[in-house]
């Protein structure tokens, strides 16, 4: 390890250079200070995990893992269950991804493969600006524009054609899992596009040239050669986007309806882990109430770690293949 060899080197130099000369040069100090900062980051992460774990013990001791399977949410009776929130989190994130992934990958293909470079650069620049828009602004637009628009233009035709499906039954009041899913997809799509586009651009040009030389059309080259080559990287971007969608708070809580119920219909209101924490943490008193919220935060944390880890594996595989 270079760190230990460096230390060894330094120790070896102890006899050859004066102590004060080295101090003036600043090597030890800068090494120690930067090392301290790095270690402090490790400590911060450990502290976060510890705080979450410690403060959720009350719920864990009372309910155990059945907390995750229960749908009760009754602060009055001090009965808590995480299932409606886990359900809402997963459903909205999943819906967001279903919409965002095809759109995003298709757009990234266009930008990477089909569009002239100048156009591609300008459009990519604009799309990356979309990724920088704060989530509370998406929430603002969600409440005032998106939800009324969905209510007026999307749901009536959807219900007339697909109304028999259980996922579209019931009255639509605007604030719903569907609205939250659509807002999430808008937020997540620029992310998918920019990462996928980079991955596609990184596919060696020889691959494409070989395919084209064999007489493939541009689309066939893309679909049969480039895309499979870049697929792991694209999967990586999808998982990163998923992790982001799972943790999204403000935009979701402004449009999801804030109702801790499980319903098969996307048109009904729901709740997500991040949204319930945002709404109820400031006023949760009573150890069991607070620790239930924190236990859910721990669950969310764990979920995002796992998904990020999967994403990392995908991305590392792409990088290895690239080199």
């Amino acid at each position, binding site marked *: 390890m270079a760190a230990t060899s460096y230390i060894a080197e330094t120790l070896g130099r102890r006899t050859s250079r004066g102590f004060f000369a080295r101090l003036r040069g600043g090597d030890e100090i800068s090494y120690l200070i930067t090392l301290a900062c790095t270690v402090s980051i490790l400590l911060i992460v450990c502290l976060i995990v510890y705080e979450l774990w410690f403060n959720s013990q009350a719920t864990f001791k009372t309910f155990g893992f059945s907390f995750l399977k229960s749908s009760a949410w009754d602060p009055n009776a001090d009965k808590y269950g995480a299932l409606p929130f886990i359900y809402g989190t997963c459903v909205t994130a999943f819906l967001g991804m279903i919409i965002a992934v095809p759109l995003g990958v298709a757009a990234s293909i266009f930008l990477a493969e089909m569009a002239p470079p100048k156009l591609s650069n300008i459009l990519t620049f604009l799309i990356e600006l979309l990724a920088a828009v*704060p989530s509370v*602004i998406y929430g603002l637009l969600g409440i005032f524009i998106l939800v009324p628009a969905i209510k007026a233009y999307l749901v009536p035709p959807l219900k007339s054609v697909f109304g028999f499906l259980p996922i579209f039954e019931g009255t639509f009041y605007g604030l719903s899992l569907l609205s939250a899913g659509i807002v999430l997809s808008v937020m997540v799509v620029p992310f998918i596009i920019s990462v996928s586009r980079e991955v596609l651009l990184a596919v060696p040009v020889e691959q494409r040239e070989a395919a084209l030389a064999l007489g493939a059309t541009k689309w066939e080259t893309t679909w049969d050669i480039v895309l499979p080559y870049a697929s792991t990287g694209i999967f990586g971007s999808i998982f990163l986007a998923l992790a982001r969608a*799972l943790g999204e*708070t403000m935009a979701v809580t*402004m449009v999801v309806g804030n109702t801790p119920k499980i319903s098969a219909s996307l048109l009904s209101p729901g709740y997500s882990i991040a949204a319930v924490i945002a709404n109820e943490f400031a006023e949760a008193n009573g150890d069991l109430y607070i620790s239930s919220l924190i236990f859910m935060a721990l669950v*969310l944390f764990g979920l995002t770690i796992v998904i990020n880890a999967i994403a990392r594996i995908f991305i590392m595989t792409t990088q290895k293949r690239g080199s």
Partner: protein
Amino acid sequence: MMMEISTSRRFINGFMLTLSGICTVLVVSVLFFILGYLLIHGATSLNWDFFTKLPKPAGETGGGMANAIVGSGKVLLLATVIGVPIGFLAGVFLAEYSGKTFAFAIRYVVDLLNGVPSIVIGIVAYALVVRPMHHFSALAGGTALGIMMIPIAVRTTEEFLRSVPVNIREGAMALGATKATTIFTVVIPAAISGLTSGMMLNLARVAGETAPLLFTALGNQYWSKGYLAPIATLPVMIYNYAISPEEDLHKQAWAAGFVLLTLVLVINVSARLIIARGPSAQRR
């Protein structure tokens, strides 16, 4: 020798091209729509009052968000002071001093921190700062946002330091500079455009964060004294006003959204321009 491409393959090719083009147009038009709507609605709601007055009690019109604008500034300043030095120096360690396996572990942990949902960081900041101190404060908000700034600070620092060519370092060392001197007087200045733009992007990212501020900075109808009092911030005001039923407050929410978005976009665009024109671009 040209091969004949069948009509059906040509058709599919054209069709898919158009389809993917449509998807792109769809995505870009959403952006234009967002920006456009916010611009029009927000700009028309802006007035001098917005920038100079304090919020008025419920039901009275004519308040502003002067304290929230300054408040956001104070919280972001704190966040930068808390998060950037730690992240920056850790990035220096990763790029210059660390061995491979240790670096891998650190990078993994930093990525972990990056993936933590912002609301969870808010909870931790509440437990670590607000509860022991017995009040909500700009400091707590700054701590939460500062922690969020660390991972990107680490990553951009490491990336841009690594991109400095080896010959620059070797030149410095050949002249007798110690490692530390090389890093701080040669390598870092060489990467400064990338580092600056990275910090700007980092700042833009946390400038819009609302969730961690909900139970750390809370809010304030007046000017907040110092850094240890509850403080109003733009994103939280937008949230509170947006879910209220009053039209006047909705207008202010749009105006605030406009200001926030403009700020974020201006920082983003400038950051990218700095990278595009900086030496790291010329080196590529």
